[in-house]
Protein backbone atom coordinates (compact mmCIF):
# COMPACT_ATOMS: atom_id res chain seq x y z
CA UNK A 1 0.00 0.00 0.00
CA UNK A 2 1.33 3.42 -0.85
CA UNK A 3 1.82 5.97 1.89
CA UNK A 4 -1.21 8.08 0.93
CA UNK A 5 -3.51 5.08 0.99
CA UNK A 6 -2.13 4.05 4.34
CA UNK A 7 -2.52 7.58 5.67
CA UNK A 8 -6.16 7.67 4.57
CA UNK A 9 -6.84 4.37 6.27
CA UNK A 10 -5.18 5.40 9.52
CA UNK A 11 -6.96 8.77 9.54
CA UNK A 12 -10.25 6.96 9.11
CA UNK A 13 -9.48 4.75 12.10
CA UNK A 14 -8.35 7.70 14.17
CA UNK A 15 -11.54 9.64 13.43
CA UNK A 16 -13.93 6.76 13.92
CA UNK A 17 -14.35 7.13 17.68
CA UNK A 18 -14.26 10.91 17.55
CA UNK A 19 -17.21 10.94 15.13
CA UNK A 20 -19.44 9.21 17.70
CA UNK A 21 -18.56 11.85 20.27
CA UNK A 22 -19.08 14.64 17.73
CA UNK A 23 -22.52 13.34 16.72
CA UNK A 24 -23.71 12.82 20.31
CA UNK A 25 -22.53 16.32 21.27
CA UNK A 26 -24.74 17.97 18.63
CA UNK A 27 -27.94 16.05 19.27
CA UNK A 28 -29.31 17.79 22.36
CA UNK A 29 -31.90 19.22 19.93
CA UNK A 30 -33.48 16.88 17.36
CA UNK A 31 -31.70 16.86 14.00
CA UNK A 32 -32.27 14.94 10.81
CA UNK A 33 -29.31 13.40 9.02
CA UNK A 34 -28.62 16.15 6.56
CA UNK A 35 -29.06 18.98 9.07
CA UNK A 36 -26.63 17.27 11.45
CA UNK A 37 -24.03 16.92 8.69
CA UNK A 38 -24.41 20.63 7.95
CA UNK A 39 -24.22 21.55 11.59
CA UNK A 40 -21.05 19.52 12.14
CA UNK A 41 -19.46 20.87 8.95
CA UNK A 42 -20.18 24.45 10.01
CA UNK A 43 -18.29 23.73 13.21
CA UNK A 44 -15.34 22.33 11.30
CA UNK A 45 -16.12 18.59 11.51
CA UNK A 46 -16.71 17.33 7.99
CA UNK A 47 -18.14 13.81 7.97
CA UNK A 48 -19.05 11.62 5.01
CA UNK A 49 -22.76 11.01 4.53
CA UNK A 50 -22.02 7.33 4.15
CA UNK A 51 -20.35 7.32 7.56
CA UNK A 52 -22.70 9.45 9.60
CA UNK A 53 -26.10 8.10 8.56
CA UNK A 54 -25.52 4.45 9.39
CA UNK A 55 -23.80 5.57 12.60
CA UNK A 56 -26.95 7.38 13.76
CA UNK A 57 -28.85 4.20 13.16
CA UNK A 58 -26.40 2.13 15.16
CA UNK A 59 -26.41 4.60 18.04
CA UNK A 60 -30.18 4.35 18.10
CA UNK A 61 -30.00 0.54 18.16
CA UNK A 62 -27.62 0.86 21.11
CA UNK A 63 -30.11 3.07 22.93
CA UNK A 64 -28.00 6.23 22.87
CA UNK A 65 -30.35 8.06 20.50
CA UNK A 66 -34.10 8.21 19.98
CA UNK A 67 -35.66 8.86 16.62
CA UNK A 68 -38.99 9.65 15.05
CA UNK A 69 -40.35 10.38 11.60
CA UNK A 70 -41.75 13.88 11.09
CA UNK A 71 -43.60 15.13 8.08
CA UNK A 72 -42.42 18.53 6.84
CA UNK A 73 -44.57 19.65 3.92
CA UNK A 74 -44.68 16.57 1.76
CA UNK A 75 -41.28 15.35 2.94
CA UNK A 76 -40.88 12.80 5.72
CA UNK A 77 -37.64 13.13 7.70
CA UNK A 78 -36.20 11.07 10.48
CA UNK A 79 -35.16 13.14 13.46
CA UNK A 80 -32.63 11.91 15.98
CA UNK A 81 -32.18 13.20 19.53
CA UNK A 82 -29.92 12.09 22.33
CA UNK A 83 -31.51 9.74 24.90
CA UNK A 84 -31.07 9.63 28.68
CA UNK A 85 -28.46 6.88 28.34
CA UNK A 86 -26.83 8.79 25.49
CA UNK A 87 -26.40 11.87 27.69
CA UNK A 88 -24.62 9.82 30.34
CA UNK A 89 -22.37 8.18 27.77
CA UNK A 90 -21.65 11.57 26.20
CA UNK A 91 -20.47 12.98 29.53
CA UNK A 92 -18.14 10.08 30.15
CA UNK A 93 -16.85 10.02 26.58
CA UNK A 94 -16.18 13.76 26.75
CA UNK A 95 -14.16 13.32 29.95
CA UNK A 96 -12.26 10.48 28.32
CA UNK A 97 -11.62 12.65 25.29
CA UNK A 98 -10.23 15.52 27.36
CA UNK A 99 -7.92 13.14 29.23
CA UNK A 100 -6.78 11.53 26.02
CA UNK A 101 -6.28 14.93 24.45
CA UNK A 102 -3.99 16.03 27.30
CA UNK A 103 -1.96 12.85 27.16
CA UNK A 104 -1.65 12.94 23.40
CA UNK A 105 -0.56 16.56 23.42
CA UNK A 106 2.19 15.65 25.86
CA UNK A 107 3.19 12.61 23.82
CA UNK A 108 3.41 14.32 20.47
CA UNK A 109 4.51 17.67 21.94
CA UNK A 110 2.29 20.71 21.63
Amino acid at each position, binding site marked *: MNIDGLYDKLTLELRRGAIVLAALSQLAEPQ*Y*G*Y*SLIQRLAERGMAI*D*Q*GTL*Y*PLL*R*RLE*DQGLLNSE*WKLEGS*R*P*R*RYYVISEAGTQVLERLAAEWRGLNDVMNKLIGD
Partner: protein
Amino acid sequence: MELIDRYIHEVGRYLPSKKRVDVQAEIRSLIEDSLESRAEKLTEADVVAVLKEFGPPAKVAESYGGTHNTLIGPEYFPTFMTVLQIGVTAQIIAQGVGLAVALAQGSNPGTAIGDALIRFWVGTLMTLGIVVLIFAALERAGVAVPSQSKDWNPLTLPKIDDTEKVSRTEIGGEIAAGVIGLTLLNPLSNWAGDVLAPYIRWAGLLLVLQVLLSIYLLYKGRWQTGTRIARIVIHLMGIGLVLSLVRLGWPTIIAGWGVGDAPGLVTGIQIGLYLTILTLIWQIGKLIVQIVRSQRTADLPLPNGDANLSAKAS
Protein backbone atom coordinates in the same frame (compact mmCIF):
# COMPACT_ATOMS: atom_id res chain seq x y z
CA MET B 1 -36.30 10.13 -10.35
CA GLU B 2 -36.15 6.61 -11.62
CA LEU B 3 -32.43 6.27 -10.82
CA ILE B 4 -33.05 6.88 -7.12
CA ASP B 5 -35.76 4.23 -7.10
CA ARG B 6 -33.39 1.77 -8.72
CA TYR B 7 -30.69 2.60 -6.18
CA ILE B 8 -32.99 2.21 -3.20
CA HIS B 9 -34.41 -1.01 -4.55
CA GLU B 10 -30.88 -2.38 -4.96
CA VAL B 11 -29.90 -1.39 -1.40
CA GLY B 12 -33.05 -3.16 -0.20
CA ARG B 13 -31.91 -6.43 -1.76
CA TYR B 14 -29.04 -6.61 0.73
CA LEU B 15 -31.06 -5.58 3.80
CA PRO B 16 -32.77 -7.97 6.21
CA SER B 17 -36.52 -7.87 5.57
CA LYS B 18 -37.23 -6.67 9.12
CA LYS B 19 -35.43 -3.36 8.58
CA ARG B 20 -35.84 -3.01 4.84
CA VAL B 21 -38.78 -0.62 4.44
CA ASP B 22 -37.64 1.67 7.23
CA VAL B 23 -34.02 1.94 6.11
CA GLN B 24 -35.11 2.42 2.49
CA ALA B 25 -37.41 5.29 3.51
CA GLU B 26 -34.62 6.90 5.50
CA ILE B 27 -32.09 6.63 2.68
CA ARG B 28 -34.60 8.11 0.25
CA SER B 29 -35.22 11.07 2.54
CA LEU B 30 -31.47 11.60 3.00
CA ILE B 31 -30.81 11.46 -0.74
CA GLU B 32 -33.56 14.00 -1.35
CA ASP B 33 -32.10 16.33 1.29
CA SER B 34 -28.73 16.01 -0.33
CA LEU B 35 -30.12 16.70 -3.81
CA GLU B 36 -32.18 19.65 -2.61
CA SER B 37 -29.06 21.44 -1.41
CA ARG B 38 -27.27 20.96 -4.72
CA ALA B 39 -29.36 22.86 -7.26
CA GLU B 40 -32.78 24.23 -8.14
CA LYS B 41 -33.01 22.29 -11.38
CA LEU B 42 -31.66 18.78 -11.00
CA THR B 43 -29.93 16.94 -13.80
CA GLU B 44 -29.11 13.28 -14.00
CA ALA B 45 -25.47 14.16 -13.34
CA ASP B 46 -26.47 15.60 -9.94
CA VAL B 47 -28.26 12.40 -9.00
CA VAL B 48 -25.31 10.30 -10.15
CA ALA B 49 -22.95 12.42 -8.08
CA VAL B 50 -25.08 12.13 -4.94
CA LEU B 51 -25.54 8.38 -5.32
CA LYS B 52 -21.81 7.98 -5.81
CA GLU B 53 -21.29 9.87 -2.60
CA PHE B 54 -23.64 7.52 -0.77
CA GLY B 55 -21.70 4.53 -2.04
CA PRO B 56 -22.31 1.16 -3.68
CA PRO B 57 -25.65 -0.42 -2.63
CA ALA B 58 -24.20 -3.54 -1.02
CA LYS B 59 -21.78 -1.48 1.06
CA VAL B 60 -24.48 0.94 2.17
CA ALA B 61 -26.73 -1.96 3.17
CA GLU B 62 -23.87 -3.56 5.07
CA SER B 63 -23.20 -0.37 7.04
CA TYR B 64 -26.88 -0.36 8.01
CA GLY B 65 -26.44 -3.83 9.46
CA GLY B 66 -27.45 -5.66 6.33
CA THR B 67 -26.91 -9.30 5.51
CA HIS B 68 -24.08 -11.22 7.00
CA ASN B 69 -21.57 -11.38 4.17
CA THR B 70 -19.04 -13.90 5.43
CA LEU B 71 -19.48 -17.53 4.54
CA ILE B 72 -16.94 -18.69 7.12
CA GLY B 73 -15.62 -16.04 9.49
CA PRO B 74 -12.25 -15.75 11.22
CA GLU B 75 -13.52 -17.51 14.38
CA TYR B 76 -14.32 -20.66 12.48
CA PHE B 77 -11.57 -20.53 9.88
CA PRO B 78 -8.80 -22.40 11.79
CA THR B 79 -11.17 -25.24 12.73
CA PHE B 80 -12.51 -25.26 9.18
CA MET B 81 -8.98 -25.71 7.79
CA THR B 82 -8.22 -28.52 10.26
CA VAL B 83 -11.40 -30.39 9.36
CA LEU B 84 -10.64 -29.88 5.68
CA GLN B 85 -7.15 -31.31 6.12
CA ILE B 86 -8.58 -34.34 7.91
CA GLY B 87 -11.10 -34.76 5.08
CA VAL B 88 -8.44 -34.57 2.37
CA THR B 89 -6.18 -37.00 4.28
CA ALA B 90 -9.10 -39.42 4.59
CA GLN B 91 -9.60 -39.12 0.82
CA ILE B 92 -5.92 -39.86 0.19
CA ILE B 93 -6.10 -42.97 2.42
CA ALA B 94 -9.40 -44.17 0.90
CA GLN B 95 -8.19 -43.75 -2.68
CA GLY B 96 -4.81 -45.29 -1.75
CA VAL B 97 -6.54 -48.42 -0.45
CA GLY B 98 -8.78 -48.47 -3.53
CA LEU B 99 -5.72 -48.18 -5.77
CA ALA B 100 -3.96 -51.02 -3.94
CA VAL B 101 -7.00 -53.26 -4.35
CA ALA B 102 -7.30 -52.40 -8.06
CA LEU B 103 -3.59 -53.09 -8.66
CA ALA B 104 -3.75 -56.35 -6.71
CA GLN B 105 -6.64 -57.50 -8.85
CA GLY B 106 -4.43 -57.00 -11.88
CA SER B 107 -5.71 -53.72 -13.30
CA ASN B 108 -3.47 -51.85 -15.68
CA PRO B 109 -1.36 -49.61 -13.38
CA GLY B 110 -1.76 -46.54 -15.63
CA THR B 111 -5.56 -46.81 -15.74
CA ALA B 112 -5.76 -47.67 -12.03
CA ILE B 113 -3.68 -44.62 -11.01
CA GLY B 114 -5.63 -42.38 -13.40
CA ASP B 115 -8.94 -43.59 -11.97
CA ALA B 116 -7.70 -43.13 -8.42
CA LEU B 117 -6.63 -39.55 -9.21
CA ILE B 118 -10.03 -38.74 -10.73
CA ARG B 119 -11.84 -40.27 -7.76
CA PHE B 120 -9.54 -38.37 -5.41
CA TRP B 121 -10.33 -35.10 -7.19
CA VAL B 122 -14.09 -35.69 -7.20
CA GLY B 123 -14.05 -36.92 -3.60
CA THR B 124 -12.00 -33.95 -2.42
CA LEU B 125 -14.34 -31.46 -4.12
CA MET B 126 -17.28 -33.19 -2.46
CA THR B 127 -15.57 -33.14 0.93
CA LEU B 128 -14.81 -29.45 0.45
CA GLY B 129 -18.44 -28.75 -0.44
CA ILE B 130 -19.84 -30.61 2.56
CA VAL B 131 -17.36 -29.07 5.02
CA VAL B 132 -18.07 -25.57 3.68
CA LEU B 133 -21.83 -26.17 4.01
CA ILE B 134 -21.50 -27.35 7.62
CA PHE B 135 -19.32 -24.40 8.64
CA ALA B 136 -21.42 -21.87 6.77
CA ALA B 137 -24.45 -23.20 8.66
CA LEU B 138 -22.60 -22.85 11.99
CA GLU B 139 -21.53 -19.33 11.04
CA ARG B 140 -25.07 -18.39 10.12
CA ALA B 141 -26.53 -19.89 13.28
CA GLY B 142 -23.94 -17.87 15.21
CA VAL B 143 -22.77 -20.78 17.37
CA ALA B 144 -20.01 -19.43 19.60
CA VAL B 145 -16.52 -20.92 19.52
CA PRO B 146 -15.39 -21.19 23.17
CA SER B 147 -11.66 -20.98 22.40
CA GLN B 148 -12.29 -17.75 20.46
CA SER B 149 -14.65 -16.01 22.88
CA LYS B 150 -13.69 -13.24 25.27
CA ASP B 151 -13.38 -15.44 28.33
CA TRP B 152 -10.96 -17.87 26.72
CA ASN B 153 -8.47 -19.47 29.04
CA PRO B 154 -4.79 -19.35 28.02
CA LEU B 155 -4.21 -22.51 30.08
CA THR B 156 -6.33 -24.50 27.65
CA LEU B 157 -4.05 -23.67 24.71
CA PRO B 158 -3.03 -26.86 22.90
CA LYS B 159 0.48 -28.14 23.45
CA ILE B 160 2.90 -27.60 20.58
CA ASP B 161 3.98 -30.92 19.13
CA ASP B 162 7.66 -30.52 18.62
CA THR B 163 8.28 -32.38 15.37
CA GLU B 164 12.01 -32.23 15.92
CA LYS B 165 11.81 -34.14 19.19
CA VAL B 166 12.07 -37.92 18.91
CA SER B 167 9.06 -39.67 20.44
CA ARG B 168 10.58 -42.27 22.78
CA THR B 169 7.53 -44.53 22.79
CA GLU B 170 7.28 -44.47 18.98
CA ILE B 171 10.96 -45.17 18.35
CA GLY B 172 11.09 -47.69 21.22
CA GLY B 173 8.15 -49.48 19.64
CA GLU B 174 9.91 -49.49 16.28
CA ILE B 175 13.05 -51.01 17.80
CA ALA B 176 10.98 -53.71 19.52
CA ALA B 177 9.12 -54.46 16.28
CA GLY B 178 12.41 -54.57 14.36
CA VAL B 179 13.98 -57.02 16.81
CA ILE B 180 10.90 -59.25 16.83
CA GLY B 181 10.89 -59.13 13.02
CA LEU B 182 14.54 -60.18 12.89
CA THR B 183 14.00 -63.16 15.21
CA LEU B 184 11.09 -64.28 13.04
CA LEU B 185 13.01 -64.03 9.76
CA ASN B 186 14.98 -67.26 10.16
CA PRO B 187 12.01 -69.58 10.77
CA LEU B 188 10.12 -67.64 8.11
CA SER B 189 12.80 -68.27 5.44
CA ASN B 190 12.79 -72.00 6.25
CA TRP B 191 9.05 -72.11 5.84
CA ALA B 192 8.65 -69.78 2.83
CA GLY B 193 10.94 -71.69 0.51
CA ASP B 194 13.98 -70.95 -1.66
CA VAL B 195 12.35 -68.44 -3.99
CA LEU B 196 11.66 -66.03 -1.16
CA ALA B 197 14.96 -66.57 0.69
CA PRO B 198 16.94 -63.71 -0.97
CA TYR B 199 14.07 -61.29 -0.32
CA ILE B 200 13.95 -62.30 3.31
CA ARG B 201 17.70 -61.66 3.65
CA TRP B 202 17.12 -58.25 2.01
CA ALA B 203 14.34 -57.55 4.50
CA GLY B 204 16.68 -58.62 7.33
CA LEU B 205 19.29 -56.11 6.22
CA LEU B 206 16.65 -53.32 6.11
CA LEU B 207 15.41 -54.23 9.58
CA VAL B 208 18.96 -54.09 10.96
CA LEU B 209 19.48 -50.64 9.36
CA GLN B 210 16.14 -49.47 10.74
CA VAL B 211 16.95 -50.64 14.27
CA LEU B 212 20.42 -49.04 14.14
CA LEU B 213 18.93 -45.73 13.00
CA SER B 214 16.28 -45.92 15.72
CA ILE B 215 18.90 -46.52 18.41
CA TYR B 216 20.87 -43.56 17.11
CA LEU B 217 17.69 -41.43 17.23
CA LEU B 218 16.99 -42.46 20.83
CA TYR B 219 20.56 -41.50 21.69
CA LYS B 220 20.31 -38.14 19.89
CA GLY B 221 16.80 -37.32 21.10
CA ARG B 222 16.15 -34.98 18.15
CA TRP B 223 15.48 -35.44 14.48
CA GLN B 224 17.96 -33.87 12.09
CA THR B 225 18.08 -33.56 8.33
CA GLY B 226 20.70 -36.33 8.19
CA THR B 227 18.62 -38.82 10.14
CA ARG B 228 15.55 -37.94 8.10
CA ILE B 229 17.45 -38.54 4.85
CA ALA B 230 18.77 -41.86 6.21
CA ARG B 231 15.20 -42.86 6.98
CA ILE B 232 14.06 -41.85 3.50
CA VAL B 233 16.83 -44.02 2.01
CA ILE B 234 15.71 -47.01 4.11
CA HIS B 235 12.11 -46.41 3.03
CA LEU B 236 13.20 -46.24 -0.64
CA MET B 237 15.05 -49.54 -0.30
CA GLY B 238 11.88 -50.91 1.31
CA ILE B 239 9.85 -49.76 -1.70
CA GLY B 240 12.38 -51.49 -3.99
CA LEU B 241 12.01 -54.72 -2.00
CA VAL B 242 8.20 -54.60 -1.97
CA LEU B 243 8.06 -53.78 -5.70
CA SER B 244 10.18 -56.81 -6.52
CA LEU B 245 7.90 -58.91 -4.26
CA VAL B 246 4.89 -57.64 -6.22
CA ARG B 247 6.39 -59.04 -9.44
CA LEU B 248 6.91 -62.53 -8.04
CA GLY B 249 4.73 -65.37 -9.28
CA TRP B 250 2.63 -65.64 -6.13
CA PRO B 251 0.25 -68.41 -7.32
CA THR B 252 3.24 -70.77 -7.77
CA ILE B 253 4.82 -69.83 -4.44
CA ILE B 254 1.56 -70.30 -2.57
CA ALA B 255 1.02 -73.62 -4.30
CA GLY B 256 4.39 -74.66 -2.77
CA TRP B 257 3.03 -73.92 0.73
CA GLY B 258 0.49 -76.64 0.31
CA VAL B 259 -2.53 -74.40 0.94
CA GLY B 260 -3.88 -75.28 -2.48
CA ASP B 261 -5.09 -72.94 -5.17
CA ALA B 262 -5.86 -69.77 -3.18
CA PRO B 263 -6.72 -66.76 -5.37
CA GLY B 264 -8.06 -64.89 -2.32
CA LEU B 265 -4.73 -65.25 -0.56
CA VAL B 266 -2.83 -64.05 -3.63
CA THR B 267 -5.05 -60.96 -3.88
CA GLY B 268 -4.67 -60.37 -0.16
CA ILE B 269 -0.89 -60.50 -0.34
CA GLN B 270 -0.85 -58.15 -3.35
CA ILE B 271 -3.16 -55.62 -1.63
CA GLY B 272 -0.90 -55.74 1.43
CA LEU B 273 2.18 -55.13 -0.71
CA TYR B 274 0.63 -52.18 -2.55
CA LEU B 275 -0.61 -50.65 0.70
CA THR B 276 2.91 -51.00 2.11
CA ILE B 277 4.29 -49.10 -0.88
CA LEU B 278 1.69 -46.33 -0.50
CA THR B 279 2.39 -46.07 3.23
CA LEU B 280 6.12 -45.81 2.59
CA ILE B 281 5.54 -43.10 -0.05
CA TRP B 282 3.33 -41.22 2.46
CA GLN B 283 6.07 -41.50 5.12
CA ILE B 284 8.71 -40.24 2.68
CA GLY B 285 6.46 -37.30 1.79
CA LYS B 286 6.04 -36.47 5.48
CA LEU B 287 9.80 -36.65 6.06
CA ILE B 288 10.46 -34.33 3.10
CA VAL B 289 7.91 -31.81 4.40
CA GLN B 290 9.55 -31.95 7.84
CA ILE B 291 13.00 -31.40 6.33
CA VAL B 292 11.75 -28.34 4.42
CA ARG B 293 10.04 -26.96 7.55
CA SER B 294 13.06 -27.46 9.76
CA GLN B 295 15.22 -25.70 7.16
CA ARG B 296 12.87 -22.72 7.30
CA THR B 297 13.03 -22.36 11.07
CA ALA B 298 16.74 -23.21 11.30
CA ASP B 299 17.85 -19.64 10.61
CA LEU B 300 15.58 -18.01 13.18
CA PRO B 301 17.29 -16.79 16.35
CA LEU B 302 14.78 -18.49 18.67
CA PRO B 303 15.57 -19.94 22.07
CA ASN B 304 15.48 -23.71 22.06
CA GLY B 305 12.27 -24.56 23.87
CA ASP B 306 13.03 -23.79 27.53
CA ALA B 307 13.24 -20.03 27.54
CA ASN B 308 14.06 -18.31 30.83
CA LEU B 309 10.70 -16.58 30.91
CA SER B 310 8.64 -19.75 31.02
CA ALA B 311 10.88 -21.06 33.80
CA LYS B 312 10.16 -17.90 35.82
CA ALA B 313 6.43 -18.13 35.19
CA SER B 314 6.13 -21.63 36.60
